[in-house]
């Protein structure tokens, strides 16, 4: 459970996030949606503490990240996994070394135990025989999977994903979305996913927060989105003419 209360964030005088409050529940895949440049990444990075917020609080269980001393943050971070937009794999390390990295850093497992854990995670994201390849030798979709494997290797309580399917074809994107969802339920993780991909919203959006120009404008589920008459949300969701037609036929059917 993560509760975000009234956070604001500005960069050199320019306000990017305006007074945002939201709750994220465990075992659920929470989506943050919005146009490019609306502040999704800044919001996600603020929740993790990679950006310091100007005001507000971010409560994990019952401790506030904003006022937490650096030491305690480092401890909390060990319970977080993050999937970055560009995967952010360490390109000087092999796939196996990338996934093993958090284990090397924070556990006293034996080499055998580490290797077993690495292979378990690789298996979980449906990858095999890639242990000794470098990130540059993998396709975009495979890089994302390795990044997911690295993010879950320490059994995180919180999983953050910044546009997990940017740069992927629609089919691979769905597979990645599904993977994130399954892992979230399986390990009862509190997951937050940034996306501007409508397919993801419809597939996995059990809880959706819509951000517009740094304001939280709407909150609900994917079913409710279709029925919503919120102007900015509709402009965003039904941006293409094809989607507009779909919307009007849904409206007709329901009236």
């Amino acid at each position, binding site marked *: 459970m993560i509760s975000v209360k009234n956070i604001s964030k500005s960069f050199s005088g320019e306000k990017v996030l305006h007074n945002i409050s939201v709750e994220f529940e465990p075992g659920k895949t929470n989506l943050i949606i919005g146009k490019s440049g609306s502040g999704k990444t800044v919001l996600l990075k603020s929740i993790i503490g990679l950006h310091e917020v100007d005001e507000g609080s971010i409560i994990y269980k019952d401790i506030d990240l904003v006022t937490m001393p650096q030491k305690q943050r480092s401890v909390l*971070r060990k319970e977080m996994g993050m999937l970055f937009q560009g995967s952010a794999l360490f390109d000087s390390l092999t796939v196996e070394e990338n996934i093993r990295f958090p284990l090397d850093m924070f556990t006293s497992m034996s080499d055998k135990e580490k290797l077993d854990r690495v292979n378990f995670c690789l298996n979980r994201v449906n990858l095999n025989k890639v242990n000794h390849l470098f990130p540059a030798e993998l396709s975009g979709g495979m890089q994302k999977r390795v990044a997911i494997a690295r993010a879950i290797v320490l059994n995180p309580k919180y999983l953050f994903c910044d546009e997990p399917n940017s740069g992927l074809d629609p089919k691979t994107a769905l597979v990645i979305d599904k993977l994130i969802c399954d892992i979230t339920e399986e390990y009862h993780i509190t997951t937050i996913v940034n996306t501007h991909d409508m397919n993801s919203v419809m597939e996995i959006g059990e809880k959706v927060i819509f951000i517009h120009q740094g304001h939280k404008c709407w909150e609900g589920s994917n079913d409710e989105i279709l029925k919503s008459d919120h102007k900015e949300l509709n402009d965003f969701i039904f941006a293409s003419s094809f989607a507009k037609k779909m919307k009007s036929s849904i409206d007709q059917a329901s009236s």
Partner: protein
Amino acid sequence: MKMLSELGRYFILMQRVFSRPEKWKMYYRQIIREIDSLGINSIGIVIIISIFMGAVVTLQTRYNLENPLIPLYLIGLTARDTMLLEFSSTIVGLILAGKVGSNIASEIGHMRITEQIDALEVMGINSACYLILPKVIAAVIFNPLLTLLSMFVGVFGGWLASVTTGALSSADYIYGIQYWFVPFYVSYSLIKTVVFAIIITTVPAYYGYHVKGGALEVGHSSTKGVVASSVLILLFNVILTQLLLA
């Protein structure tokens, strides 16, 4: 004003760099890697430039010494002291600032823009310390060895030039390089090298660590890092010389 705030940011970063590592074993592994990539990889270029510089200093001194009253072995002494005092620390420092500095700034800058640094931070790792400290330690350990190597090779280059061109005899040169030897010159040079090693690693790392934007900005940061560290080396050369030799 801008310089002051940059200086402030530099020292804030250094405070994070020089803190206690999470796990020494991982840092030890990084230090070995950095010694290989920053140190061992620079041996070739140090040998080449030192040989040529030793040779050219010897030849130039010979052509400038018209006066028959001055003994020729002083050429050997001049070549030796040039290498010991200035060349093997300062000039090698400048060359490494170009080679190692641009490498460090672009590596760290690339990690910044591809969010690899954020990835370290999310894991709860002090990224400044993990990425920069091993480089500083590697350079502080290994650069003095490069300086010593450069001294030997440079003096050898002078000898090679003497005997192959007949500028002076091997015996004169060898007598010259042993004549009035001041051991402190070596310590002086090594002290400078250690200070330069810290500059060469931390200054480009600072520019790389604070990159914003894309590949173009990474390129800019690497240029800035090399220029700033070169200027700082020259500045500290003057300061240290005044402190140590005056």
